[in-house]
């Protein structure tokens, strides 16, 4: 996986079971050799000059993401990047989903949190492999960390990989991990205007899951308005409503997952 790896950043930690792997690697970064002919050698170091860069700020992450995507494609895996604000019920949704699917499918999970391995522990209790990435001061997972998680997890061909991103509706939107889809989870206990308050995330997602629908009778949450806001930010977004707790709507989510997995198996991109 390290074809483009330049890991010198030893600040995140991977937790596989109860062990902690330190994350310091030798540096073998491959540079883009975009030589500017006029300036590429024997510069006069005392004189200021201009150099053209024309490079995306996230170019490095995007290279790792492309590498991850190639890896997933070779294995016909379905990989979903689950994003939401803290407390939307992502982990509970995952646990319930795994419980319903694990007899039929190979599932692995990458958990991203700033601190603790609690979520990965909860996932492992369901019997599927899970790896915790603590991002430390980072507010999102990046494609590089995910690439290293794959080395440890070794997911199977035709498997389903859930990447539960750090609970944050802002930062993860910009970081491609190589996933097939970003799935944004919004619980009805949050405001219906979240899609326009945090438009970047809803713009980046392909599917929105409206979770905790069992609580709707107790709330003033306007589902139709929420869906309209989401469509306003992203006309292509699809929406599923469900309650991970009661199971209402879970069948549609499972059918969506199986259909998407089937698309990966036929090499549909």
């Amino acid at each position, binding site marked *: 996986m390290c074809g483009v790896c330049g890991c010198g950043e030893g600040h995140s930690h991977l937790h596989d079971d109860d062990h902690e792997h330190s994350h310091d690697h030798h540096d073998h970064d491959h540079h883009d050799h975009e030589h500017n002919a006029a300036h590429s050698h024997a510069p006069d170091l005392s004189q*200021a000059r201009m150099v053209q860069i024309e490079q995306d700020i996230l170019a490095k992450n995007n290279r790792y993401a492309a590498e991850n995507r190639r890896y997933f494609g070779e294995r016909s895996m379905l990989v979903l990047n689950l994003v939401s604000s803290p407390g939307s019920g992502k982990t509970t949704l995952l646990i319930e989903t795994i419980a319903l699917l694990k007899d039929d499918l190979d599932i692995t999970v990458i958990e991203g949190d700033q601190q603790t391995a609690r979520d990965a522990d909860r996932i492992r209790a369901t019997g599927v492999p899970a790896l915790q990435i603590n991002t430390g001061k980072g507010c*999102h997972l990046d494609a590089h960390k995910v690439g290293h998680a794959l080395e440890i997890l070794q997911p199977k061909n035709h498997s389903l990989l859930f990447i539960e991103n750090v609970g944050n509706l802002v930062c993860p939107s910009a970081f491609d991990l190589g996933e097939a889809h970003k799935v944004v989870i919004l619980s009805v206990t949050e405001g219906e205007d979240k899609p326009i308050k945090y438009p970047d995330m809803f713009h980046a997602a392909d599917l929105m899951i409206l979770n905790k629908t069992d609580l709707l009778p107790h709330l003033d949450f306007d589902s139709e308005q929420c869906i309209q806001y989401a469509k306003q930010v992203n006309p292509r977004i699809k929406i599923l409503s469900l309650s991970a707790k009661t199971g209402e709507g879970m069948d549609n989510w499972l059918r969506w997952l199986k259909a998407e997995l089937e698309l990966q198996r036929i090499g549909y991109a």
Partner: protein
Amino acid sequence: MTNLPGADLHLPEEYMVGIACMTNLPEADLHWPEEYMAGIVCMTNLPGVDLHWPEEYMAGIVCMTNLPGADLHWPEGCMAGIAMHEMSLCESILQVLEQQAEVQQYRKVKTVWLEIGVLSGVETDALRFSFDVVVQGSLADHARLEIIEIPGQAWCMPCSRNVVVQQLYDLCPYCGSHQLQVNSGDQMRIKELEVE
């Protein structure tokens, strides 16, 4: 961006750039005047900190480090949990500057020109603040940051034309449709450098 007169929170001059808040925080201990409301953001509650705010404000805030001399302190352990989107972008920028230094043979970066689209979700004041912090002690220490703002543009499907948009949730200014495909204004690019 500046000191916060009238606010309960005071920070030393060097931290004044880049801190702000998206909205007032009713029920929070921390208040500042309306004019400072554009820009910062907090990720999570801060255990052990005197500063608390309600759950719905939890998505977004941020501070980079302890603030010596400021009234606001939190325990060292909390420092890891406080972060900033713009901070990580600046780390990515610095990586490119360092990598290009070998390729393009320079030792010092004096000015960095960025193209930042208005739809990129980047808060430019926070970006400037983070940049100054991130490049300290690097080849770009004290470099000037020039931000070229790229307007938002989207293709309106019903109108079959490009229209200007300020926000991702904007409707077409001509037909009112939300069937818009953004085709410019979401970029974050390093355009060029002045180096020596």
